[in-house]
């Protein structure tokens, strides 16, 4: 007598809604995995592989063991099992041992659950029971059902490989080294040229002033500066640049460090852009391609502007020397000072 009893009024609608919900869930799972894969790819492109280290984690953190949760992540596999294991669950099994109902993984923890040992540990006398083993094969808990097993596992630890936040094989290491070497060579060569020129001019001035062998001449050489060695705390010697040469060298080192910092910022900025593109596309392949493009577009630009400032102290110092000795000797009367041989930046009075 069809049609006389209870009839569903909206079954098609409900069916459609459930299909939509299932599709949305599956789609979101795919999106998540694309995002995670994409982020991994971007990180490796810009920072290299993250180092990992073993760390203890609670089994309670595994989704399937969460209080009130459902058992998820229990997939067959691992130690493989055909139907041979019976009787009480042994205290120790070897990886690869057989259990009556096979083995199931607890997430990716390395822990496994055997189904099928009868009356395992007295958990379910006469019937099949669940036995939990740690990755070394030690029996850790038994229960007549998974729901009985879960609470026993919640307080236990397992080892998990975690990212340390440090990276190896920096993909930009060569670029950075090359950049730093280029800057050091460029700045260093110019510094040495100017330093040597300042020494020559100082010597020339000393000779012309007839000050060779005087305390004043030695003081001037000390002020122009050079390199000296002092014992280092941990043994050996520190090579210390002193005087105006030292000041210029320190400034050069600071400028190079600043340029390296700017390069790091550029790389970080490109990584941020790649990540934003990933969020927009949610496609890891596109993100990886874009990341490589962006990584290739990072153009380190040396800061040539800093060079002018770098040599100022030497020039001012040397011209200051001449200014200081104006009117003191023949050098002044001969009109040599007015030639202002070193001054490319001023009259020499700035420091006088």
């Amino acid at each position, binding site marked *: *007598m*069809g*049609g*006389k*009893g*209870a009839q*569903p*009024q*909206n079954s098609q*609608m*409900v069916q459609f*809604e459930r299909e*939509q*919900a299932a599709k*949305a*869930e599956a789609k*979101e799972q795919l999106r*998540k995995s694309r*995002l995670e894969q994409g*982020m991994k790819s971007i990180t490796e492109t810009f920072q290299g592989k993250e180092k990992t280290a073993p760390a203890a984690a609670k089994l309670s*953190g595994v*989704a399937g063991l*969460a209080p009130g*949760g*459902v058992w998820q992540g229990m997939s067959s596999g691992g130690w493989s099992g055909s139907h041979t294991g019976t009787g009480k669950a042994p205290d120790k099994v070897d990886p690869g041992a057989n259990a009556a109902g096979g083995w199931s993984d607890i997430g990716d923890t390395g822990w496994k659950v055997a189904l099928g040992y009868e009356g395992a540990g007295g958990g379910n006398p006469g019937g099949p029971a669940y036995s939990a083993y740690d990755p070394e094969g030690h029996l850790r808990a038994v229960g007549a059902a998974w729901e009985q097993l879960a609470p026993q596992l919640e307080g236990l630890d397992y080892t998990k490989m975690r990212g340390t*936040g440090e990276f190896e094989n920096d993909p930009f290491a060569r670029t950075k080294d090359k950049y730093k070497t280029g800057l050091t060579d460029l700045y260093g060569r110019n510094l040495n040229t100017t330093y040597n020129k300042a*020494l020559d001019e100082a*010597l020339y001035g*000393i000779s012309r002033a007839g000050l*060779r*062998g*005087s*305390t004043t*001449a*030695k*003081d001037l*050489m*000390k002020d122009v*500066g*050079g*390199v*000296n*060695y002092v014992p280092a705390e941990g043994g*050996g*010697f*520190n*090579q*210390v*640049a002193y005087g105006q040469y*030292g*000041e210029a*060298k*320190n400034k050069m*080192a*600071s400028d190079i*460090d*600043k340029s390296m*910092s700017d390069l790091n910022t550029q790389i*970080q900025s490109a990584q*941020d852009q790649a990540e934003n593109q990933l969020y927009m596309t949610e496609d890891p392949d596109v993100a990886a391609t874009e990341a490589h493009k962006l990584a290739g577009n990072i153009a380190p630009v040396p800061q040539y502007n800093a060079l002018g400032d770098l040599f100022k102290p030497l020039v001012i110092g040397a011209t200051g020397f001449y200014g200081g000795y104006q009117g003191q000797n023949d050098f002044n009367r001969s009109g040599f000072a007015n030639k202002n041989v070193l001054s490319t930046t001023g009259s020499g009075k700035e420091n006088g």
Partner: protein
Amino acid sequence: MCDPIGMIGLAFSIGSQVMQYQAQQDVMQKQQAANDEWLAYQRFKSRQHDATQEAMRAKADASRTKTLGELGGDPTRQAQETEQARLEENMAPTVDKVPAGFKSIGDQLLGQAGGRIEQHYADALTNATREARQRMQDLAVVQSTTGSQFGLANRANSLLGQSQDDIKLQNDMRQGDLAVWGVQKAVEPIKYSIGSGAGAFGGIAQGLAGIAGKSLGQAAAGQV
């Protein structure tokens, strides 16, 4: 005397009531089962959603906590000292030994004057070197505390940037999960009602019941 037609109507009426009752019971049972199934589905999805949200929140929080720890006093001090040492080494590199035959630039270019002048120069050079070294150390302290390559400012930005990336990723996935949960919550239970056949039969029975009622009423009136 009872009217036969009335009696037949009465029988139909009772029969129809029974069938109506059975149909209603059937609807109630099936509706209850559908509601239970729907409730189980919603509970399952709710728990799943809660666990997922919690796992993602925990990941984001772990990243935040890790960064917070690294920005704390001791790790910051250690990072500053490491960076200071790097800068000092950069400015005043360590060598095993002083190069053989090393002479100061003044002695190289001007020769050794000897006597008081040379002693004065040696003292001046020692002082200048000591001051230069002190300036380098001060500079290394200042730069490592502020804006050198791995100085505290850049370190903090880098650490916060990394945790922000982690938190952003987890938040994005939480949003996605919330959207899915919205679709799942919108799933309705199946609704049952009495079938159309039962309705038609009920109508006939009701008609017959009406006739039965009328006949019985007339019979009762004649007797009075």
